[in-house]
Every structure is written in structure tokens, then in C-alpha cells.
């Protein structure tokens, strides 16, 4: 009898009609555009010129990294081949070097009618050729997609020094490193200020790990936290430039918020667990952070006053270092899969977890580009820790630094 009853109950449970709901999105992003880049014509190789500058190579690299183009480098202008390959636009130019000065002109043409879409003329010192080429790449992206490119953005990261770790700023493609700190102490977790003029980071330079702010163009450094405890992983609010950070002032690590000059410190989380690595949403209203309040580190979201905390990730046993996409729709984080960290993204509603990296080695500290199309991260897949760029869907993973020792990348705004 009991058996029958159990069977009846189980039948009832199974037969309860389930409402099935399918939401499907078929759009697959912007289609890539075919573009040809013709080697720049070198004219008037004057005395004292090295002939080393090759802006077209920089432009080719920029366009490839941007994830918007199929790039076809060409030695000479060949419209027949371009028509065969159905290439829509092409870039050509001239370069003229003399006495440490480089003059180069770049032109973007329509490949069918050969009409000029845009053209730029740069007169720069030899060491600024890369920057000028980045500027033209951004102009090309703007003219063809109506959106500013990210070729002139920078990365701040830590680099292994002789004794400690130093904070340095790189071009987004890994060139032109500039050291922000050059002390023999450990400097960690750098982050940009919203105006891209300053860098926040943790440093042991006064023996205790405190937060510092260094203006990258003047070198002026300010200490922000007076306490002697561990203060780390700062992040700035893109709207009002307040700083959220993690600190162990009250015993265990909690999230705090303060003004950009270090005043008005307020505590946001009051758990007995470890809270760390905060990151603001693009509108500045919310903070995503890591917490192990349920036993394992997971990603949470709260309002910027510390209220309305909700858990975001439920897959995986170790999810950390979240980074909010500039468009606000996704959060990238590192997740432990089979003993190594991989980069994943998740929708902010909590669905659609997408694992972006699968190669061996730890892939850590994702950071979105300002247009939300690319993700920068550090990876040990080639041995030492280097920086990589990939498209936000995980394709086109490109290594941008060599030599190892690069960690904690953080992409600047435009």
C-alpha cells in the first residue's frame, strides 16, 4: 500500500506540466570587414635616416587586434587582387624620414571607386611613429564603424623587478613600457583613475602595504591609506572617482570605499568572511566583488553603498577577480577548472557562463577594453606569466608581451 502511494506521488510530481521557454538570439555580432594595407611607399631616404620606422606594420597589427577586420597586407597596390578577394577598403601611404624626424601620410580608400575616405599627415619624432600610427588606426575604426578605436589606450600592470615587483604602463600592444615605480619593494594590484591620468596601487614602500596614487605624467605620488594593515585591489568609480578597495583594518578582508584623495573611508561589507577584488559597474551604481561567505570564493554584486548583495556565480568552486564590461552586460572573471584558472564571462543576470580560455596554464585577471570587444589577461600557458589579448568571445588569443613577469593587467579607458 505504501509502495503504491509512493508510486502515485512520484507520478504526480513527474507529470506536472513544465512550462518551456525558449529565448534565442541569432545575431552574431558585427561581421568582420575585409581591409587591405599596402606597404607605405618610402620616398626621399635622406641623410641620417634609419629607415626603420614601418607605420604600416603597426597599423596592420592594430587592425588585427581590434577584432573588427580581416587584414590583408600587400606589398604593392594591386586593385585586381583586391577585387578578386572582394576587399572593400584599403590603406596606403607614404613615408619620409630624415634627421630623427618622420613624416608620413596615410590614406583610407574605397576599393571600388578608389575615392578617398580619410587621410592624415603626421610629422613626428622617430620615437613617436608608433603612437601616430595608433592614432590613424583609431581614425580608421571611427570612419568605418562609427566608434572610437582602442589603439591609443594603455595597460597598467606589474612587472617582476630585480627584488620586488614594479608597476609599469605599456601601450595596449605591449610596446613602450614606462615604469611608474622603481623601488625594490613589492607593488601590486594597479588600477587606473577614471581620467587615465593616475594609477592606484598597493605598495610596501613604507614597510606596510598601503594604497598609493601616482600621477603617470608628473610622477607625483600620494599615500591614500594611513593605517598599517593590508590595503589592496583598488578600483575607481568611473562616475565620481571614488575608490573601492579591500582592507584588513577590522581583522579579515572587507570592502571599503573612500574619496579619490583618501578621505571619508566607509566600510561596505560586514561579513566574517573574506571579501576582495571590487570592481565598479560602468554606471558607478554597483560593485562586483569576490567573497567566500558560502565556503568557496564566488562572485557577488552589491550596490555601491553596500546594500542589496546577491550572488552571481554558482558554477565552479573558485571564482575570483571579476571585471565589469564597459557596456555593462557581462562580467569576466577567473574560474578554477581542473586545477588551473581560466577566464570566463557571465551575463549580469547570472546566466550564460562562457569559458573563454582552455589552454593549459593559469589564465588570470581579465580586464575589458574600453569598447568592450576585447579582454586582456595574464597567462602562464607559455611558462612565465605574460599578457594576452583576445576577443570578448574567446577567439583570436594573441600574446602581446614576451619575457615573463607581467601580472595584474588593467586596461585604461579611452
Amino acid at each position, binding site marked *: *500500500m505504501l509502495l503504491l502511494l509512493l508510486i*502515485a506521488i512520484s507520478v*504526480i510530481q513527474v507529470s506536472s506540466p513544465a512550462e*518551456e521557454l525558449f529565448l534565442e538570439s*541569432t545575431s552574431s555580432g558585427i561581421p568582420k570587414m575585409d581591409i587591405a594595407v599596402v606597404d607605405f611607399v618610402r620616398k626621399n631616404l635622406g641623410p641620417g635616416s634609419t629607415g626603420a620606422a614601418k607605420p604600416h606594420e603597426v597599423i596592420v597589427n592594430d587592425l588585427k587586434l581590434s577584432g573588427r577586420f580581416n587584414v590583408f597586407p600587400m606589398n604593392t597596390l594591386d586593385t585586381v587582387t583586391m577585387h578578386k578577394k*572582394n576587399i572593400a577598403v584599403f590603406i596606403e601611404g607614404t613615408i619620409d624620414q630624415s634627421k630623427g624626424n618622420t613624416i608620413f601620410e596615410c590614406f583610407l580608400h574605397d576599393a571600388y571607386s578608389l575615392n578617398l575616405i580619410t587621410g592624415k599627415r603626421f610629422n613626428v619624432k622617430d620615437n613617436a611613429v608608433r603612437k601616430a600610427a595608433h592614432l590613424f588606426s583609431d581614425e580608421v575604426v571611427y570612419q568605418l*564603424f*562609427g566608434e572610437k578605436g582602442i589603439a591609443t589606450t594603455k595597460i597598467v600592470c606589474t612587472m617582476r623587478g630585480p627584488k620586488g615587483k614594479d608597476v609599469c604602463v605599456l601601450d595596449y600592444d605591449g610596446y613602450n613600457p614606462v615604469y611608474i615605480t622603481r623601488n625594490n619593494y613589492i607593488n601590486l594590484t594597479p588600477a587606473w583613475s577614471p581620467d587615465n591620468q593616475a594609477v592606484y596601487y598597493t605598495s610596501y614602500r613604507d614597510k606596510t602595504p598601503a594604497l598609493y596614487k601616482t600621477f603617470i605624467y608628473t610622477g607625483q605620488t600620494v599615500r591614500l591609506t594611513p593605517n598599517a594593515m593590508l590595503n589592496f585591489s583598488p578600483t575607481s568609480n568611473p562616475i565620481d572617482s571614488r575608490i573601492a578597495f579591500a582592507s584588513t583594518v577590522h581583522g579579515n578582508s572587507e570592502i571599503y570605499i573612500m574619496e579619490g584623495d583618501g578621505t571619508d573611508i566607509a566600510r561596505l561589507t560586514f561579513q566574517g568572511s573574506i571579501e576582495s577584488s571590487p570592481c565598479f559597474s560602468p554606471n558607478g551604481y554597483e560593485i562586483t566583488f569576490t567573497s567566500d561567505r558560502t565556503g568557496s570564493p564566488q562572485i557577488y554584486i552589491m550596490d555601491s553603498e553596500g546594500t542589496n548583495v546577491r550572488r552571481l556565480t554558482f558554477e565552479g568552486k573558485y571564482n575570483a577577480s571579476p571585471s565589469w564590461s564597459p557596456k555593462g552586460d557581462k562580467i569576466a572573471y577567473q574560474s578554477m577548472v581542473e586545477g588551473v584558472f581560466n577566464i570566463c564571462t557571465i551575463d549580469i543576470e547570472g546566466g550564460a557562463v562562457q569559458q573563454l580560455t582552455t589552454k593549459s596554464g593559469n589564465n588570470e585577471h581579465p580586464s575589458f577594453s574600453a569598447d568592450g570587444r576585447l579582454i586582456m589577461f595574464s597567462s602562464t600557458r607559455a611558462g612565465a606569466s605574460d599578457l594576452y589579448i583576445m576577443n570578448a568571445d574567446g577567439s583570436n588569443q594573441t600574446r602581446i608581451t614576451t619575457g615573463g613577469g607581467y601580472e595584474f593587467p588593467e586596461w585604461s579607458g579611452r
Partner: protein
Amino acid sequence: MSMPAALLESVKRDPFKKAVTVSLVLHLFVIISFTLHDMMKPRQVVKKAYLFDMVNTRPQPRRFAAPPVAKPREVKKQEPAKKTVEKPKEKAISTKKAKKEEKQKEEPKEQLQDEPKETVQEKDAPQTLQNEMTISQPDFPFKYYYQQIINAVERNWNPPQELLGSEMQLAVEVKFRLLKNGQVTDLEISESSWNTILDKLALRAIEKARIPPIPGDESELTITYRLVLSRN
């Protein structure tokens, strides 16, 4: 086997247990019969959630929205000379046949003669209505720009099939002015699909599109864009 037998014995002896057993059997019968009845019922398909018919505020029937509308439009376009020249160009672009465009550009006179033939063909098969963009300036030379606008707009054009209802196709035509920096102004519906939701989706697809700045000397373009939702 001894356990159920002993159980039955005890049930027979005790009147209370007997009553309980009868009640249980009856209950089970009722529960199972309800369950079976529920399972037998043909399930409602989820589609129901997406049938937006009831929101449709316009009283007109949908027969105006379907392909037949396209026919008079095709005939109209034969009258002005400018439009007939430019029309095949856009079609070629939307099908990505770049080479054809060039030939057409070289021999514009022949196109005029070819034009009626094409429309006749379309009349034979009215259901092949497709998204189509028309730029008012007939000699706008930048071919890539057509494709960029199409990409920018159709990235946002993904209306649900359920909006079709019983129709095979719904078409909405919007008209807007494009400023030099790619900004859309004066956006309006020039030919409604008589489905308010589809109309709104069309407007939103244009509004949300991030269109690149206009290349060359042209400071402003007027664009007519026909967006079609057809059954897969």
C-alpha cells in the same frame, strides 16, 4: 511474499485497517485518474506566450502588410529616372555582388531598359521580398558604406517569428536622414506593417544602429530602409 500476505491477514481482521485501506485505494484511484487525465490532455505549445496579436491596436486587417503591397511600389519606381538607375545598385550590394555594381555603373543606359524586366520577375515571385536600403543620392560613390549601414542596422534586426501570426511576410519601411557624423534624425515610418510592435522594433533597430560617419563630400543622406520579417 510472506510480508504482504501477513499484512492482508491483519487488514482482514481489523475493521479500522480495512476502512483505511478502502479509503487509500479510493484516494489513489482519484489521484491517478486525475494525473492520467492531465497527461492525456494535448499540451499547449509555448508559442502562446509570444502571440502578440491582442496588442495590435490597429483595426485594419493584415492583408495590406503582406507582399502584395510591394507590387504597386515597384510600378511607382519606374516613373522617376533617378530612382530606377540607383535601385539595382543597392540590390547588388545587399547580395554582395561587387563586380556587378561596377558594370552597372559603367553602363547606366542599359539598366534603364533592363529595369522593367526585373520587376516582372519579382511579380512572379512576390514572396522573395528582402531587406532593402535605398540612398537618395544616386551617385554616392562609396560602396563599402552601404554594407556598413546594412551591418549596423541588421545587427539589431531580429524580431520574433511569432509576430507574423498567419502571414508569410511582414514588411515595414522606414525613412531617415543621416547626418555627416552618422547620427540618425527625422526617423519615421514611411510604410507601416500594420503591426505596431514590428514597427517599433524597426524604429529601434535604426535608432540603436551605430552608423559610421559619411565619407566624402556628402554632408547628409536620406535613406529609405525596408525591413522584412519572413517565415523561416
